[in-house]
């Protein structure tokens, strides 16, 4: 998978390394900005309140 991506990046080794780094940072950005904030309320790690049966705070 990663080998396939690497082979399809343009340019020489240095250009590929830079492009790969930018791609990786873009993925991290998307995760932090959109995916994790969406996933967090679904996961049971951060509830701090007591609540009546059924209702999520």
């Amino acid at each position, binding site marked *: 998978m990663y080998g396939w991506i690497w082979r399809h990046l343009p340019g020489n080794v240095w250009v590929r390394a830079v492009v790969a780094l930018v791609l990786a940072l873009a993925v*991290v950005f998307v*995760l932090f900005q959109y995916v994790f904030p969406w996933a*967090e*309320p679904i996961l049971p*790690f951060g509830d*701090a*309140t*007591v*609540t*009546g049966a059924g209702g999520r705070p």
Partner: protein
Amino acid sequence: MVDPESEPSGPAAEPEPAVSEPEPSEPEPAPAVPRLRPRSRTASAVSVFGELLITAGLVLGLFVVYSLWWTNVLADREATKQGNEVRDGWADGRGGPGALDIKNGIGFLHVPAMKNGEVLVKKGTDLKSLNNGVAGYYTDPVKSALPSAKQGNFSLAAHRDGHGAKFHNIHKLKTGDAIVFETKDTWYVYKVFKDLPQTSKYNVDVLKPIPKESGKKKPGRYLTLTTCTPLYTSDYRYIVWAELERTEKVDENRTKPDELR
């Protein structure tokens, strides 16, 4: 067995062919390099599967970084901003015990034993509000009393981890420790008298005006802190109860009460 003199030449010599290898256009002595043999379908599938597992591990690791670090950065920034707005409002003469500035928060909680500075307190305990690094007072399922009320239970919630983690050190609170709530005009000095290290998240009785589990039987001016426990999860709730000891008028210099000095 191997002459130590010859060793440095070994690793040094090896990278040379490795560097030239990525050029596929070069004519190669094909049979000598087994890596170039077309891999079997199974091997490719296993390889992709392995890479997916590694990726999943990295994403989970990043989620931990996000939860325990990045949300704190964002929340602290937002809480500082909102706290400054409240203090600016007080300086301009808005807010106060009679006309609590509900929208921008009613005051600041100081808990010296938690060593986390001041925590802005706002109305409501919905996640969106708590995620800004503030503590919220309950409006539901049991309506909180305000500190200025003659009697009742001032009940607060805040995050244990992430999003400011304002109640992270709640387990450091011991009986007799001070909890000070600061409004525009008044310092409310509470003293911890009971904690409940683990209770069900459905135990809403802890918020009642007379929280029986704390051992109190008569109405009084109580304070309840709630947050999740154990650390890093939220299977249960951690409760700390305190009772109002005295109030102090805020003077011109906002001189802090003895407990905060």
